[in-house]
């Protein structure tokens, strides 16, 4: 009987990615685990790393880094593993939003998603000032016709973004003010990267 044959009797943890399974076992053993994103350049043209910090009996162990993976990150969120601070949580959730909106992108196309997303943000209090507004003012998007497709697309986007806020509250146990801080950062970063705002600034085009 080899590894494959054992699958019929495998414990439920076997369905998790190996790193998530490891973190789960360490958490159950009482370790504290937090994550950090490693992005060697602001433009994001390098592979993003996910650094795992672990404390055993309050002693920090050597951190280790893996390539960013949407599935692994989702598994770590399910385990209640937070980022090391709110800024990092914002960056991490910018990636989570990107992953969550991919199916909307596939369904409706890039341009339509961008237009409906900007429309949705414009009508939100989140965009009345602050970090999102500072990015939004450099972005142009056409106003899509408000028909059935528009509302279906808008609902999907709102559900996915709202779902990430629920994860912050329910799975990562952040307070409401912290959830708002993280989601504001995350949306601002997502918008910035989607519309290349910082990268244009870096090239002297803004």
């Amino acid at each position, binding site marked *: 009987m080899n590894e494959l044959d054992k699958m019929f009797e495998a414990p439920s943890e076997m369905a998790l990615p190996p790193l998530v399974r490891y973190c789960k076992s360490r958490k159950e053993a009482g370790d504290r685990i937090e994550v950090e994103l490693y992005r060697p350049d602001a433009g994001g*043209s*390098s592979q993003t790393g996910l650094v795992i910090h672990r404390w055993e009996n309050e002693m920090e162990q050597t951190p280790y880094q893996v390539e960013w993976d949407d599935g692994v990150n989702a598994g770590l969120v399910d385990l209640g593993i937070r980022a090391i601070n709110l800024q990092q949580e914002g960056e991490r959730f910018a990636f989570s939003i990107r992953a969550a909106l991919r199916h909307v992108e596939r369904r409706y*196309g890039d*341009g339509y998603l961008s237009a409906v997303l900007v429309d949705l943000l414009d009508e939100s209090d989140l965009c009345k000032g602050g970090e999102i507004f500072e990015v939004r003012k450099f*972005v142009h998007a056409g106003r899509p016709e408000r028909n059935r497709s*528009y509302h279906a697309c808008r609902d999907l986007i709102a559900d996915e973004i709202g779902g990430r806020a629920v994860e912050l509250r329910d799975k990562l146990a952040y307070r409401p003010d912290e959830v708002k801080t993280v989601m504001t950062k995350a949306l601002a970063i997502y918008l910035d990267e989607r519309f290349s705002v910082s990268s244009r600034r870096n090239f002297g085009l803004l």
Partner: protein
Amino acid sequence: MAKADEVQLPWPVCSLLLFVATSAEENALQEQAAKLELPCQKYPALTNHFRERGLRDDAWSLGTIGGETVIAIGCSRIKGNPVMGPYGRLGSAAKGMRYLAATGAQGIIQLGMAFGISRGPQSLGDVLVSTSLIPYDKRDVKPASNEPGYFSDYSAVEIEPARPALVQRCLREKARTQFGFAVHVGAMLSGAARIHCAAFRDELYGTVPHGNEPIVGGEMEGVGLLAAAVKADDPAWCVVKGICDFADEQRGEEIKVGLTIAPQNAAHFVLSSLLNDAKMLA
């Protein structure tokens, strides 16, 4: 009042770029746009926007089609001759990077001509859609005891996925519209070689790893677009090309026919996909 060419363009300038690499592909795109009653116009402000960034290729606006604002970029030329393939100052790698930076587009579709793998299952003019690209130049050439004294080890090849949103649009179009040509979706071999040899084509087909997708053909520009991704795991490109030959000894003759129908069909397929998505969103 500002002149037309001094108007500041909104950002992003467009969401989708269409690239071509030859005059035949450029003409095919314009003809198909006219046939489908899509605008395909040059605007002084757009031309000026690109000129200011050192980009001198012809550029046409196809307007907003459904959710996408579309700009077509003509072939790059040196001394009047089109630049094909990924390399050089005006090759597809440089072109992709520069135009993405200049427009803020999310996606690039490389239109044009490709080689097919097999006559019979495939015909001249059939359209190939890349779900992934296989940069076959990335290989180890090792000594071998039998002729010709070496072999190519392709195990280091990394398969590069195309932009899912662009592939998905092509899949929708394939499912909903009947064309006078077949549409083959899968992995495409990509490299700078112009192949005229069935033995080499078959070696690639038979030995290059292709992941979970079948190899449906090969071409020259897509590999350059791998450089154009703004983010590491967020590809910008998809290759959609018509079969103009089968990369074998008949290439020279066959391409005379393929040159006409292949880029026409590819352009028609992509523009039709945009129009039908626009209807879906209306």
